């Protein structure tokens, strides 16, 4: 039965449990090699420190806003590390850590949220699309890019990140449908963190799980523990492998939790309890993997403190670079609207520059 084959597991697949022991429900996931586990741990420790630093910078007003991914560290890092160099990542505004893990410079990653420009990095350099602020629109871009790879016989997979709330958008539906029809080499990773700002998943969807939605499109889904970095890595890697070998798209739902509020401007106490948050802190993705690595003697105190120092260095670097004044050039406002500025835009630029010159002259 086709439908039977498309059924996701009843419980989330897990390779390492919250106490750091081998998971009870590995499904068909391949347990990552030790060097991968060490990279996942390193990525999460660095990512967490970056995220904490960015949250502080937002509270200090040095960033315009920061949507934290604390708690979703395993999804961020597991997903980014499972991609090959030639693959593409399509992130949202909450996926700064995934972008950083992909190798994009920290300050360039934060350009959008600092307000320097809408996207601070060159998407073609690390094959990372601009962070997408509208919901689920990036799913279609990923499907289009992936299908273009097929049409041009390029070995390339697109991974698109979206949240539980974004699955309600029409574009998510259209993207899943197009991807399945075209057998596009694309992986959809839904980070189900429980809330769309304040609205819980129960008010978002009546589906048994979000993974189950794959059945309707003819897309094989995976339901995984999104706080288990090994499981996220294994699931995304399996999706990439399937896509790259002509098997078409995969829909992954990763169950996780947004520990911080939606952004620094949000008050999460209005819609969820402290008890609920504490329960999830006990399922911390980093502590879990660290416990496993120590038990397996893949991590010791010395390596851990070296890593902590590296994380502090990253945070200091981010602090320094975010503390210098941005050098935004008003003339650039007119540069990238069209391939060449129109005559009207040239006139508007001249007007603005004259205005600024006048201000400068009249300054005491």
């Amino acid at each position, binding site marked *: 039965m086709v439908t039977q084959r498309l059924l996701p597991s009843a419980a989330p697949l897990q390779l390492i449990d919250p106490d750091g022991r081998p998971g009870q429900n590995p499904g068909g996931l391949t347990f990552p090699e030790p060097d991968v586990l060490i990279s996942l741990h390193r990525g999460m420790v660095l990512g967490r420190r970056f995220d904490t630093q960015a949250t502080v910078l937002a509270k200090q007003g040095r960033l315009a806003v920061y949507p934290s991914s604390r708690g979703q560290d395993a999804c961020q890092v597991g997903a980014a590390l499972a991609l090959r160099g030639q693959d593409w990542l399509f992130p949202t505004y909450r996926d700064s850590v995934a972008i950083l893990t992909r190798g994009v410079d920290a300050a360039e990653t934060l350009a959008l949220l600092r307000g320097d420009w809408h996207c601070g990095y060159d998407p073609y350099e690390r094959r990372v699309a601009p962070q997408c602020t509208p919901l689920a629109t990036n799913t279609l871009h990923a*499907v289009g890019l992936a299908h273009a790879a097929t049409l041009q016989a390029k070995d390339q997979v697109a991974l698109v990140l979206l949240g539980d709330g974004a699955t309600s958008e029409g574009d998510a539906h259209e993207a899943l449908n197009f991807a399945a029809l075209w057998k596009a080499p694309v992986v959809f990773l839904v980070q189900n963190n429980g809330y769309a700002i304040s609205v819980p998943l129960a008010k978002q969807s009546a589906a048994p799980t979000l993974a189950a939605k794959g059945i309707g499109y003819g897309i094989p889904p995976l339901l995984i523990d999104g706080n288990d970095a090994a499981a996220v890595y294994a699931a995304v890697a399996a999706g990439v492998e399937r896509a790259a070998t002509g098997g078409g798209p995969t829909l992954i739902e990763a169950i996780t939790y947004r520990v911080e509020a939606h952004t620094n401007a949000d008050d999460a106490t209005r819609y969820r309890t402290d008890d609920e948050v504490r329960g999830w802190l006990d399922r911390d993705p980093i502590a879990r993997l660290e416990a496993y690595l120590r038990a397996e003697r893949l991590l010791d105190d010395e390596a851990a403190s070296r890593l902590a120092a590296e994380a502090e260095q990253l945070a200091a670097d981010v602090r320094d670079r975010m503390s210098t004044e941005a050098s935004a050039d008003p003339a650039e406002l007119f540069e990238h609207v069209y391939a060449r500025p129109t005559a009207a835009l040239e006139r508007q630029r001249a007007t603005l520059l004259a205005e600024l010159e006048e201000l400068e002259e009249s300054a005491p």
Partner: protein
Amino acid sequence: MTTVMIPPAGDTARQVPAPVTMAAALNQALADSLAADDRVVVFGEDVGALGGVFRITDGLAGKFGEHRVFDTPIAESGIVGTAIGMAMNGLVPVVEMQFDAFAYPAFEQVTSHLAKLRNRTRGRVALPVVIRVPFGGGIGGVEHHSDSSEAYYTHTPGLRVVTPGTPADAYLLLREAIRCPDPVIFLEPKRRYWSKETAVLTPDGPPIDRAVVRRTGRDVTLIAYGGMVATALEAAEAAAEEDWDVEVIDLRSLSPFDDQTLTESVSRTGRAVIVHEAAGFAGYGAEVAARLTEQCFHYLEAPILRVTGFDIPYPPPRLEQYHLPNTDRILDAIARLQWEDEGA
């Protein structure tokens, strides 16, 4: 679709003028673009085996294969959204929206992504996407089949919006749009799909952002685009009988706007009338009138007038004739241009 002589591809064959409809000219432009550039792909609803509901893509899937010309699910946002991703990865997508009002589901992809991605990425990501939209009324279409949606797009920086008024220009403009590094909304005046012109189809001509003087005149500048170009030319002929020498400008490019050609003409004639099917309120003509007033005020002999559709939802087929601008309304507007003041 009317069968017409289409000059076969190849420059020598095109040296001989032949009668061609706008629909056939558009078809030829797509075929020649597909042949000229491997990166071009054509997709949308019913564009494959059927050749599109207006047959603009007739025969293309057979000629170029289903990997170059293909049908999609009925999902306009999906069509534009995937076109964006394809353009990011080296292709030049030319997509069809089946009708003007059926393009609205794609609005977010058009305005938030297609128009902005170059800007968002400081020029690093170019999106050479063409969205073909049959637009406007005059064909007796039932509701949602006759909208003039140009102002939604022209109000969005980052988009080019063009519309041809003649078959030969339909060919040229579409070739130019497909070669353009910017995203282009290509509005096809569906009431003129079957109008014929004896012409040579050539990819060389005025650049994509230039307006063209279709008829020279001394007394008044009549400004039109798309389906209204032919109406304006008819009105100019009728006005000649009343001794008004009317210049007709076909805008071609609604965005960007060709200030130079327009101000040159209006400064010379001192009078201007703008014609469009769309509702007048906050319509495209308001922008034209404002620009020309700002730039030609001291040359103007009369207020700039607009002849537009009423400020109503597009009417049912039996009533559309009362809504659409026609020769009489254009002549009435010309008559109201304060001729009695001349020489006063």
